[in-house]
């Protein structure tokens, strides 16, 4: 800790950000943060990206954080600036994304007086953040900023809010550098217990029908963890499945990868989860989209669960071997212990298990029927497949973000992710409007990357104002809209569960997306039928600047396979032909979301 001559609070704040390695801030100015903006004006080390809505700022910071592994930084004003950021904060909390969000606040002497643009930001964001701070004394400022970064990026990452009263930013404050330790009571455990590793290897060596089930924790841990996961899968020969959040940790093209599991996961992934005898879960949290009906979830298996968050273990599913620690460290210790263990696994049983899995694979649960005759309607799955194939030869790093709904699930199913940190989607909170601002954050972090927001026409309108940000910074983001003229997932559930009564799910009065793109100084393209699709994709990828590609797709297409709400993994609907089984959904299933 070094004391230095006193500067203004805003200068201390910016110096602390710089010492934390911050290069870019996503924000929106307002009265309470004017001293900070004035500070930004006087320096060149930190770049500011002006969004058009504070929710967009947080999602952009999430895209930046998820594609780089660094902390994303947000700056918003008091009152509505802070409340507009709340959705993004909860999104980051649910998906464990490291964010530091700086919020302006009215001066300390006005706090509690219902002053103009005052909101109880720490009160409102307490359940929306991993931790938050209200800096009421100049002497606490530098420490709070450094601590916030440590809290945001360590342990299970998450968003941290620092509420900054205007008088603290204007008045003098002392500076101190990054401390050795962060918050005195905050010591997350990252190194696993060797005894737990030993018990896990016992189970793995004795497994006859094993499965490895991984999640966002492997991505969050870093590239090293994904590399170790690949090593473990190669070493054991075990099948591996992933949550929505974990895609890319193991290459989609790896023959041992069974695809995504859960509500819209593959038949083979879900049946392997259901039928396994030993489950190794790493950095995944057994959420309801993954488990389906809890009392029927993987009934015959003994479970190993490695997670950095003790509250994720035994929350939904009781496990035999809990391992607390960072996914990368756990994987490293597991590999060491597995290799050092002299027992040989039951190769014959594993081969038999793979034969069973191959039988499920042969059902081709992601298949769809695309009529290729000119004039035929485009199937959304086909559009994503063609997009995926077209991006493989572009010679650029390809990043995909999504909005939320059917298009998101089809993207997860049909776009193959080979590397971690290339797939950004709102998993836990399911925030429509996530994809475009997230793509902005990704593109800012990777100026030479190809960044595509796979969107629906409903979701994209939730943060469409960010096209203005795209224009201002000349970000070559590609927005690929699967336009079915419905809130597709709502429509699908209404069809399956509510007798086809499509209450308010039809997107009447849609804009002309080509003209909309042009009004934001971007290129607009449209594909009406199947023979136009490849040309639109080619033109989109060949365009240097931002593009909105409006792809008219089959409005009635449903997303399959599907585990209906309240059903078990072995009770999937595979295709429209078997849809009538949804009629058997019970009342307890109907209340689930």
């Amino acid at each position, binding site marked *: 800790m070094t004391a230095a001559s006193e500067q203004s609070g805003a200068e201390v704040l910016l110096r602390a950000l710089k010492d934390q390695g911050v290069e870019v801030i996503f924000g929106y100015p307002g009265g309470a943060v004017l001293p900070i903006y004035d500070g930004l004006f006087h320096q060149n080390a930190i770049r500011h990206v002006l969004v058009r809505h504070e929710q967009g700022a947080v999602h952009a910071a999430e895209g930046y954080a998820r594609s780089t592994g660094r902390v994303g930084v947000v700056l918003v004003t008091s009152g509505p600036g802070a409340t507009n950021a709340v959705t993004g904060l909860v999104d980051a909390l649910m998906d464990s994304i490291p964010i530091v969000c700086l919020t302006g606040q009215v001066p300390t002497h006005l706090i509690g007086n219902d002053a103009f643009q005052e909101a109880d930001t720490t009160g409102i964001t*307490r*359940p929306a953040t991993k931790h938050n701070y*209200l800096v009421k004394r100049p002497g606490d400022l530098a420490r709070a900023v450094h601590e916030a970064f440590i809290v945001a990026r360590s342990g299970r990452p998450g968003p941290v809010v620092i509420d900054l009263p205007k008088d603290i930013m204007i008045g003098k404050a002392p500076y101190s550098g990054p401390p050795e330790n962060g*918050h005195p009571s905050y010591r997350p455990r990252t190194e696993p217990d060797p005894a737990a590793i030993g018990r896990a290897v016992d189970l793995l060596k004795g497994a006859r029908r094993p499965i490895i089930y991984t999640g966002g924790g492997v991505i969050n841990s870093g590239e090293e963890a994904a590399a170790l996961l690949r090593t473990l899968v190669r070493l054991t020969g075990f099948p591996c499945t992933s949550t929505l959040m974990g895609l890319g940790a193991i290459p989609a093209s790896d023959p041992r990868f069974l695809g995504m599991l859960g509500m819209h996961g593959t038949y083979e992934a879900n049946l392997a989860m259901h039928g396994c005898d030993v489950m190794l879960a790493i950095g995944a949290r057994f959420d309801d989209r993954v488990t389906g009906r809890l009392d029927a979830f993987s009934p015959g298996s003994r479970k190993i669960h490695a997670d950095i*968050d003790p*509250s994720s*273990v*035994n*929350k939904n599913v009781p496990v035999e071997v809990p391992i607390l620690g960072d996914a990368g460290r756990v994987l490293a210790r597991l590999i060491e212990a597995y290799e050092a263990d002299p027992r040989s696994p039951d190769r014959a049983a594993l081969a038999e298990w793979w034969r069973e899995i191959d039988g499920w694979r042969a059902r081709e649960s992601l298949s769809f029927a695309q009529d290729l005759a000119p004039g035929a309607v485009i199937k959304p799955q086909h559009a994503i497949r063609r997009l995926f194939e077209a991006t493989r030869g572009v010679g650029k790093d390809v990043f995909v973000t999504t909005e939320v709904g059917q298009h998101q699930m089809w993207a997860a199913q049909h776009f193959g992710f080979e590397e971690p940190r290339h797939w950004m989607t709102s998993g836990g909170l399911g925030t429509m409007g996530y994809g475009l601002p997230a793509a902005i954050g990704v593109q800012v972090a990777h100026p030479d990357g190809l960044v595509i927001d796979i969107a629906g026409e409903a979701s994209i309108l939730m943060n469409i104002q960010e096209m203005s940000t795209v224009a201002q910074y000349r970000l070559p983001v590609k927005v690929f809209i699967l336009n079915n003229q419905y809130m597709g997932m709502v429509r699908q559930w209404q069809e399956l569960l509510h007798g086809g009564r499509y209450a308010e799910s039809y997107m009447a009065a849609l804009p002309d997306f080509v003209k909309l793109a042009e009004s934001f100084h971007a290129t607009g393209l449209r594909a009406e039928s199947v023979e136009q699709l490849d040309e639109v994709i080619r033109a989109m990828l060949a365009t240097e600047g931002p593009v909105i590609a409006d792809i008219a797709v089959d409005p009635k297409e449903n997303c399959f396979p599907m585990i209906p709400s309240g059903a078990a993994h072995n009770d999937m609907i595979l295709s429209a032909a078997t849809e009538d089984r949804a009629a058997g959904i019970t009342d307890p299933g109907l209340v689930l979301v």
Partner: protein
Amino acid sequence: MAGDAGLRFATISVLVENEPGILARVVGLFSGRGYNIDSLTVAPVDEAARSSRINIVTSGTEMVIEQIKAQLGRLVPVYRVADLSREGPHIAREMALIKVAGTGEKRAEALRIAEAFRARVVDATTESFIFELTGGTEKLDAFLALMRPLGLAEVSRTGIAAIARGTRTI
């Protein structure tokens, strides 16, 4: 044990950094996740270390109690969570101020019972007593039940303070 369906009571002590909002954080965790709070006390215990102790009596299934402990443990300002009802024998005490209003035989009977319970008289008028009584929750409940027909007028209880027996510390 609370009896039905595998529910149990748990007395949980939480040692926290004494910073603004910590109580709201703990209470918000309970309300936000639908856990019960039967009683909650909080006070600073070490001014130098800026730590406070929160004692919570809650109830739930074993899995829920374990979740409560894990959720408390991951709050940034929390140093330690101790499930006193599981980690060995412990002592739990609370204090109550109990106002009993009445005259004649009922007033005399209230005073006799108070002596039997070793409750202290901390205020008296010709028509009322205020008793101070310290003890386990059951003792206080029993005393209040006896006072009810004798003119029980008002009760103020602290909620429990709890600590492990022997040399064990949080």
